[in-house]
């Protein structure tokens, strides 16, 4: 490993890294705009100029690879002068419309101005070049050409990552501007990423802008539930509402990116149909009740069916939207407590959903299909359940996170499962299946719980609770623990950490893993060679 000295500190840096990365390892910030680790190096912003001993000119840190014995100064007089100079140049034609700019608070121009410049402008406002503002360039992206610092991150993203090249730089010199080609718009499934990587307020998201000042938002690391890729994300939320998702770097899963479908998936989790209280059928209506009464009712039904028809008259359907812990807890409850092995899984994607592509998007829109398989649950198995219903063997069904009616269509559902005596649904929303249920238990959506998903590659990734579920909704593992208690009076773990530990002890695929040790990038299932 080459040794470099940055600001008097000796740093061991792996071969091939540049000075920005090397400095970062020692906690030294070299300010930069155009450099992005997920894109090629263009070296155009010149913000990263630093003094490298023995080089006559200042060098751009982004294009300078570490070499043994290199001595770098990021706070020397020459470096500081260059930093101030570049910021002054960048602000010459900048409209300084920060009070009405939605990037304020997370703008690298604002940040670096405070940290590295902080001097009065020497350029008169009236002489600034005028360019386009609030241009709708397609795919939910808004462009302000005056705020653009021409770092070419966005153009490189569309050139190098999506290979769609919708944005380009037009004109020359200080008339340069980012734009789409005449008559064309941005049209790809990853457009939102350019908003993330734009260091300033030039690219903003139509859906997010002006909805919430970013300094009020809290950030919780999580995983996108949009498909079986499970991109690492940060959930940005305020007072129990999600305002946006942004991709979180994960070299093993999604690099720096996520798709627009996943990015815009959160409104579905906080719609009008969220369930906030347990419901029970009363004639042809569902009426709210307390958890205590709901669980008492359910436990006695389970006992009744078990006593009358045997434990195998009770079955369960586990949707692949469930977390590993939820699926494990329900499996445990069914097999060990109730004594039934009638289990099925459902991994359903709506017709017309996007198919696999070469970047991230997967046709399977369920985040945890692989996790259910790793727990030894049968893939599908719904037909076997339907046959058992037809044969009069299966009387009661517990359905967790699977909208069977939507999936099968009402007619088909009734044909296959209409003969059931009792159906209980655990879900987040009042979906069509709930309407047919005898009992409904409201559970937390994945941003509201602790737990994990296993993506299609077999990577177990951690979910963190951004905020509690609405109303009386409970994390499903807690609901299941309470149900277990109602059935046999025994105590069961109800925290994700403890359920995970039980799962790791019981299930070979999860052996050796703990929820805490998954880390920000997740960990592979046991037995997968990396």
């Amino acid at each position: 490993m080459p040794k470099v000295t940055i600001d008097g500190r000796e740093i061991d840096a792996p071969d091939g890294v540049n000075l920005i990365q090397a400095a970062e390892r020692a906690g030294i910030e070299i300010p930069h705009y155009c450099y992005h680790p997920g894109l090629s190096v263009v070296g155009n912003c010149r913000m990263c100029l630093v003094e490298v001993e023995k080089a006559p000119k200042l060098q751009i840190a982004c294009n300078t690879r570490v070499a043994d014995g290199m001595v770098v100064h990021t706070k020397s007089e020459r470096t500081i002068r260059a930093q101030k100079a570049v910021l002054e140049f960048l602000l010459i034609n900048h409209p300084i419309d920060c009070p009405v700019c939605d990037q304020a608070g997370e703008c690298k121009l604002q940040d670096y101005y405070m940290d590295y410049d902080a001097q009065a402008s020497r350029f008169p406002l009236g002489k600034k070049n005028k360019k386009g503002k609030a241009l709708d360039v397609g795919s939910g992206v808004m462009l302000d050409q005056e705020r653009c610092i021409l770092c070419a991150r966005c153009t490189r993203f569309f050139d190098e990552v999506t290979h769609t090249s919708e944005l380009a730089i037009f004109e020359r010199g200080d008339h340069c501007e980012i734009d789409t080609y005449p008559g064309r718009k941005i049209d790809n499934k990853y457009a939102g990423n350019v908003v993330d990587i734009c260091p300033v307020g030039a690219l903003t998201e139509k859906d997010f802008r002006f909805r919430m000042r970013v300094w009020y938002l809290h950030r919780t690391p999580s995983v996108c539930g949009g498909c079986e890729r499970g991109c690492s994300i940060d959930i940005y939320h305020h007072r129990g509402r999600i305002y946006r998702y942004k991709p979180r770097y994960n070299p093993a899963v999604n690099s720096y990116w996520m798709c627009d479908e996943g990015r815009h998936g959160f409104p579905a989790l906080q719609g009008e149909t969220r369930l906030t209280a347990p419901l029970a059928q009363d004639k042809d209506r569902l009426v709210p009740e307390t958890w205590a009464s709901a669980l008492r009712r359910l436990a006695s039904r389970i006992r009744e069916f078990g006593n009358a028809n045997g434990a195998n008259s009770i079955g369960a359907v586990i949707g692949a939207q469930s977390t590993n812990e939820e699926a494990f807890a329900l499996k445990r409850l069914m097999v060990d407590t109730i004594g039934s092995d009638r289990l099925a899984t459902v991994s359903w994607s709506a017709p017309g959903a996007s198919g696999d592509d070469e970047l991230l998007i997967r046709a399977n829109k369920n985040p945890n299909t692989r996790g259910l398989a790793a727990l030894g649950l049968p893939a599908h198995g719904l037909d076997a359940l339907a046959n058992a219903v037809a044969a009069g063997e299966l009387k009661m069904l517990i359905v967790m996170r699977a909208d069977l009616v939507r999936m099968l269509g009402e007619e088909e559902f009734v044909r296959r499962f209409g003969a059931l005596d009792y159906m209980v649904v655990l879900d987040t929303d009042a979906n069509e299946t709930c309407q047919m249920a005898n009992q409904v238990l409201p559970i937390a959506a994945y941003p509201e719980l602790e737990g994990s998903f296993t993506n299609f590659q077999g990577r177990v990734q951690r979910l963190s609770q951004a905020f509690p579920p609405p109303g009386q909704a409970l994390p499903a593992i807690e609901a299941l623990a309470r149900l277990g208690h109602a059935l046999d009076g025994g105590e069961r773990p109800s925290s994700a950490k403890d359920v995970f530990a039980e799962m790791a002890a019981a299930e070979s695929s999860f052996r050796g893993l703990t929820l805490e040790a998954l880390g920000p990038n997740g960990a592979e299932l046991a037995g997968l060679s990396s």
Partner: protein
Amino acid sequence: MERILTRWIDIPDLRHLNVYEAHGGYKALRKALFDMTPEEIINEVKASNLRGRGGAAFPTGVKWSFIPKDSKKPVYVCCNADESEPGTFANRYQLENDPHGIIEGILITCRAVGAHTCYVYLRGEFNLQKRRLDEAIAEARAKGYVGRNIMGSGFDVEIYTHRGAGAYICGEETGLLESLEGKRAYPRNRPPFPAIQGAFGCPTVVNNVETLTNVPHIITRGGDWYKSIGPEKSPGPKLFCLSGHVNKPGLYELPMGYPLKDLIYEVGGGILGGKKLKGVIPGGSSFPIFTAEEAVKVNMDFDSVRAAGSLMGTAGVMVMNEDTCMVDALRTIAHFYHHESCGQCTPCREGCGWIEKLLIDLEAGRGRMEDLEILIDAATNMEGNTVCVLADSLSMPVKSFVPKFRDEFEEHVRLGRCPFRETGTAAKGHAAAAAAR
């Protein structure tokens, strides 16, 4: 003095192959193909001390020696015929009148560096020039001098001519390569240098037209002969583009080291209208200006001009007489660089425009004294901090004009107008500039 690079003046129709060959043409190529190894060619050019004529004055033989030997990738030669520097018009006459001299230089260079393909990048406006070169390439091909198995030697070279779409930055060698590859002519960060990763990611030599035309003469007559013309470290015959306020502007071939004073007063016939000399930019618009007192002491070779505080660049000598408004002259220069900055890197993109705007105000009498300091500051902040040296090319004029003619700049501020506005040659320029704005 014997004319070497401008033999067409003495030899009518030199641009035709039969005439060119009748006067010794393609003998150097034959020698290079049959009597010399590539190594020997490079050594001869190194020994000649030939330095690039495109502006940077880099030793040509040394540049060639950077091309990796036994490269696994193809090696390319690019002939830079983008000639866009203000006050520079040597290559255009060479292309019109001595295309075979260029072709022969290209072929020998290809042999030296092991290239089988040469791209000639011509500026977009070079219509006639491209035609002449294409005709000459066709003639040479018919004779077996271009294409496969040149002169039966087994060595192949294909030459392609490519016309740019018209931007100064296409002449910067890495901008040229980008443009050649079909992209926007954004100069590249170095390293990697073109010798390692040039055109299409392959080792590439980029040489100016005039540089290449020196090569056949060096091969025929030897590096020692070449070095004996002018100063040893900066030798050779040189094309000077004399323009501005002189009686006889034009293209002149003179030995390196020729006194600037003689170039202006003898060769150029003195200052237009019998006026006094005020300043000279010796190398195109990109370099520091000399005052009259400095100019008359300088010899025109790379090292002498550098020692005197400027650079010889393309040897585009721009002469300004006492009626010239130096604020307006600098404004004109700033307008050029503002217009031509590719806009890729921050200091140049923003700095060139800032400087032009300051100078427009100063020239119009709307300037402030502190603007002079801002000018110097902005220019200093651009210098050395960019991808290519276009930014320095405006910085250097600014940082020489302002201190050297400070009185004139201050007078504009004090009077609140241009003192040259109603009189002198500047008045005409004003009218044109005002119309353009």
